[in-house]
């Protein structure tokens, strides 16, 4: 704090302290039962939103905050979406548009059924008293808000993600407060989201057109599979040669993979495959015919 504003700032400081305490007390009294949160599952969509929000921030904000939407399921919080909330933060004060957060939260609940506010995020790894202020607001929105920080400034050369919840500490009827404790998280998406993710990972800094040419996809997947099989084979050879320790769990999994191939007589296999192939070829021929017919009719329409 600067010395010239000492009086003013100490006034604000005292107000802050009082504000934090009353807010937390109100929050803890309003919702005495906090639901236990043991794990957090984050869908990649939410993270993309946060990064985009950080890139679009006003120049004078060093960090951005926003709400997390999702649902709560027996001790596990699933975060599926996020949206930004306008907020200003300077060294002396912090303000956020709480009405905006509530309004957009309601709107999203109307459109995406079963999505409600489950917490909030902020960019950067710092957790300070402003965070506890904002957290107190979110405590009024949901029983156990999850606080997600994502390090967009990339200290340590990594974009580290952390999830926390608050637990009360302190002496009852005396100084009370909250402590941010970390909660384990996993990043997991629905099946189709993972397909998109895989496509994005092939981008690696360049632009690319989504390629619906299935045949190229098959070649790519085959290549990947070949390399994976190579890795497994390499490991097995090492174990056989005695260089690497044999792991029972791994061995069982490899056995499962090998036994997943159905063990049928070669005759039945060829029959099955042939008939399937014939079905496919017949369908292709029919579609080819149909397309020719359509082309002819289009040309006729021009003439008649």
């Amino acid at each position, binding site marked *: 704090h600067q010395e010239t504003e000492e009086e003013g700032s100490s006034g604000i400081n005292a107000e802050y302290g009082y504000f934090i305490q009353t807010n937390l007390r109100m929050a803890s009294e309003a919702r005495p039962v906090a639901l236990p949160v043991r794990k957090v599952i984050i869908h990649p969509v939410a993270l*993309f939103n946060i990064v*985009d929000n950080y890139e679009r921030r006003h120049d004078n904000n060093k960090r951005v905050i926003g709400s997390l939407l999702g649902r709560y399921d027996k001790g596990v919080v699933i975060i599926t979406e996020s949206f930004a909330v306008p907020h200003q933060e300077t060294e002396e004060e912090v303000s956020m548009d709480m009405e905006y957060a509530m309004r957009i939260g309601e709107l999203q609940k109307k459109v995406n059924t079963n999505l409600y506010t489950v917490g909030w995020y902020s960019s950067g790894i710092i957790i300070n008293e402003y965070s506890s202020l904002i957290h107190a607001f979110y405590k009024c929105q949901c029983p156990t808000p999850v606080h997600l920080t994502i390090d967009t400034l990339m200290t340590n050369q990594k974009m580290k993600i952390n999830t926390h919840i608050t637990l009360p500490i302190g002496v009852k009827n005396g100084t009370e407060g909250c402590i941010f404790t970390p909660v384990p998280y996993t990043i997991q998406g629905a099946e189709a989201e993972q397909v998109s993710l895989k496509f994005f990972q092939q981008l690696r800094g360049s632009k690319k057109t989504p390629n619906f040419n*299935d045949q190229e996809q098959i070649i790519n997947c085959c290549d990947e599979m070949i390399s994976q099989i190579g890795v497994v084979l390499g490991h097995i050879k090492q174990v056989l040669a005695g260089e690497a320790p044999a792991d029972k769990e791994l061995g069982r999994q490899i056995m499962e993979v090998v036994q997943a191939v159905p063990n049928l007589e070669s005759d039945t296999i060829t029959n099955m495959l042939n008939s399937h192939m014939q079905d496919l070829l017949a*369908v*292709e021929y029919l579609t080819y015919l149909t397309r020719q017919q359509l082309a002819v009719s289009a040309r006729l329409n021009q003439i008649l």
Partner: protein
Amino acid sequence: MAAAPKHSPQLFESIEKVEITSQVIMKITRHCHHELEKQLDPNVNGVLLGLINENKHTLEVTHCFPLMNSDTDEGMEINREYMLEMERSLRQVNIDYQQVGFYQSTYLNTHCDRNFLDSVFDYLEEMNEAIALIYDPLKTKLGNLCIRAFKLSLAAFELYKEDKDFTALMLRDKSLTYENLFKEIPVVVKNSTLTNVLMCELDKVQDNTSFFTLPTSSYLEKSMQLLLGGLDEINQDLQKLNMHQRAVYKQQTQIMKHVQERKDENAAREKNGLKALPEEDFSKMFKPPPPVGRLESLLSANRIASHCEMIEEHVKSGIGKLYLADSFMS
């Protein structure tokens, strides 16, 4: 949002490709699959936001938000209010708020119907560079990201402005067939640098196995059923056209008969020395039957063509996968 509509062919043709950020694709994916869990053929759509980059002739889509099902009038009112609200809110957080089109999910390529055409037309009227993004969730589930951008071709747009039901003459004038009803614009996915860093973090989240499912008969069967349905529709349309032509022909012969009768009568009267009856204009008496609208048949043809394309691709990859399976088992 409600700018004065500018119609110029240059603006229409100025977009050569569409750039989408991965954030938008993820949001569309999440929305469509969320709705797909509830019912098999949901009416999923939403609004695309972004900006136009005139120098590079690209349309950049940077944000999107989903809309509710608006089958009823009340639903549409709510949607309109919702869009206005979102626009105001997004402005506060520095997100592009200009609508550049809409996205829609499709079920085996059946999206191509009258409603779709109307929506595309509405958006194009507002903004000549608007596009429609079609996302195919079933195909993506099988392992191949399928998202395409469409807009009406210039000829189709102008025709639709004049008459909602095309007539054969108009089609011939503009040489419009089912092939150039819609124009597909190539889609490019682009990421910002920070998003790329995020992708590196998410390296461990991957799943390749969904791609190798063998071609199941149910997918083919449904496609074939839809194909047959489309063919039936075209057949009905052809029959209507036939009947119309027959009616026109009948009318022409009737007119000619009447003219001939009048001539004979006049000749007879002249012989008898009576005054000749005036030769009326018979075309006014017999009004020609109204021309048959050709729009539905165009749309059906388009749908059938896209079904055929889909089936062909499916079959091609299916044959490859069968050979793979063969090499495993023998």
